[in-house]
């Protein structure tokens, strides 16, 4: 996909994030990731809990410092000085998972949305640039963009007076008020009622189409990716194991983990579900060789042995997937087939 390769807006280069949690080995939450997100793209970062996707997202936002590698935004590596980080925040914003917890219960909707504007003194900045506006107008604009109309009706409400969907829109409005270029959405609809998920997802699509917003969605829900994502990166135990366009990855998965994930999404289609045994191992004890090999159904069924790569699966670590180059999977079977 040329969108990503030509001029990525946000990149992770050789990114690794390790936590020292007191055990014998550090927790390798992110263990070598190359990812490029192009302007105007919606990329889904998909994986189960413990795979490191949330840590990766937070590191891309600058809320976490990488142990190795760098985060590059618009061609320049992230500087962690407080002034530079603050400027970065105007361009990259976050939507959290739980809209109820994300809003200060003592603040009105107006105050929650205006918070970002006040921190960055946006009104003064705009006036200096010759744009005559007030805080109230900017707040109303953001609320309207997030689908809360008429915005004036919501100014005086408190979070607990709104429904789940409305709260999530307030959180989105708070992020939009800063007019960011990229939005990171961490499980944006997982705590919302089923019938309103579509509305919030449609809002994200509209923001991309109308405002040119780039979106990185972190989720465990493959259906969500099918709904709105251009490209998908599948994560397992701190590494991206497969990347490509949504159609490529979801309709022609190459990595056994992706194949297993897809097979168990509740379907009526006649796909034999591959229910993996056990659970995702501890990120402080990552298996040797291919990190997925202890649970890999292809290895267990002898497919790897047939292809002659079984030894590599168990003993040889895979190289980190590059951020460019179309549909790829980090699997000895796939590399062997030259896919």
């Amino acid at each position: 996909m040329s969108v990503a390769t030509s001029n990525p807006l946000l990149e992770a280069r050789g990114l690794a994030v390790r936590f020292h949690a007191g055990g014998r080995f550090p927790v390798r939450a992110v263990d070598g990731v190359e990812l490029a997100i192009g302007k105007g793209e919606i990329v889904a970062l998909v994986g189960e809990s413990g795979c490191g996707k949330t840590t990766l997202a937070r590191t891309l936002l600058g809320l976490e410092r990488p142990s190795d590698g760098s985060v590059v935004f618009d061609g320049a590596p992230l500087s962690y000085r407080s002034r530079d980080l603050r400027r970065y925040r105007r361009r990259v914003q976050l939507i959290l998972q739980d809209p109820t917890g994300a809003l200060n219960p003592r603040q009105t909707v107006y105050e929650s949305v205006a918070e970002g504007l006040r921190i960055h003194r946006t009104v003064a900045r705009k006036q200096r640039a010759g744009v005559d506006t007030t805080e109230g107008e900017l707040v109303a604009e953001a609320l309207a963009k997030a689908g809360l109309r008429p915005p004036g009706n919501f100014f005086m409400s408190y979070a607990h007076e709104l429904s789940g969907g409305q709260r999530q829109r307030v959180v989105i409005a708070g992020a939009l008020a800063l007019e960011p270029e990229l939005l990171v959405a961490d499980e944006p609809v997982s705590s919302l009622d089923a019938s309103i998920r579509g509305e919030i997802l449609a809002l994200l699509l509209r923001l991309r189409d109308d405002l040119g917003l780039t979106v990185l969605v972190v989720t465990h829900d493959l259906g969500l990716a099918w709904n709105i994502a251009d490209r998908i990166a599948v994560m397992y135990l701190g590494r991206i194991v497969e990347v490509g366009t949504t159609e490529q990855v979801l309709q022609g998965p190459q990595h056994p983990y992706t194949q297993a994930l897809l097979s168990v999404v509740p379907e009526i289609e006649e796909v034999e579900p591959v229910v993996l045994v056990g659970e995702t191992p501890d990120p402080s004890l990552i298996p040797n060789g291919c990190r997925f090999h202890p649970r890999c159904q292809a290895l267990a069924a002898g497919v790897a042995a047939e292809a002659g790569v079984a030894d590599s699966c168990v003993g040889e670590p895979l190289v980190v997937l590059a951020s460019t180059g179309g549909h790829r999977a980090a699997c000895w079977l796939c590399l062997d087939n030259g896919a």
Partner: protein
Amino acid sequence: MTTPRLTARQVVRRRRRDSAARNWADFRGHKSGVIGLGILIFFVVAALGAPVWADASGLKVTEATGGVLESPSFEFLLGTDDNGRSVLTLLIWGARLSLFVGLLATAISMVIGTLVGVASGHFKGWAGSVLFRLTEWFLVIPFLPLAIVLASVLGASLFNIALVIGITSWPGTALLIRAQTLSIEERPFLERARALGAGHWHQMTRHVLPNVMPMVFANTTLTVAIAILTETTLSFLGLGDPLRVSWGSMLDDAFSSGAITTGAWWFLIPPGVCVILVVLSFTLIGRALEEIFNPRLRERG
């Protein structure tokens, strides 16, 4: 897209007024709290109106008109002390001092305690640890020896007594506030504030402090109770201002003048009863406030 007819600040002010009215209505429902408030108002009015109903000259030893330790009579409703002064006059003027020192000490304690508590809960790394250790260190210092030492070093005056009490009681508040801060720091809206670009000051003042305030408020009233009790103790031990009259100094005088053996109950019992009543009133109010603010937190949480 219309801007609201009221400005945002007016709306917030109106909301705060409504919330205060709601809290008052809740408070009225707590009988014990209302009783406590009644008692407190009685004493505050008595103290403030001291120049009105108790002649200040009645405090001067040289102008004492009564006999020594006279029992209560029509002229001296609560009898006289060992200098011939009216005990009632002393009591009323003593209320001023006890309440004033109690409140001043509490103010000092709450300010230091809140600052240290919020800071030690918010800052990770060495800054937070240092503040925490400081709090713990102050906590274990035995209060009375420290108070005695400080009082003798600083000299006995109203302000110094308040300072001594403040310095020795802030750690309790700080620990409570720190615990509350730690739990608020975990809430997602703090993470959102950071993601929006908020610095430490903004996080602490706009998010942590407002959510910690209810607990601070309830804790304050209980701290006042302790402060007044402490002042009484210090004055009783003779560490208070010798020129001023407080309930504690009255008790001290009563003991040293042998009121027990002579049976001068009018000198001994009233100051003690007053201290008990005032402390009780603050405690009742404080408990009622805690009950009011807690379900609120549960509702919003």
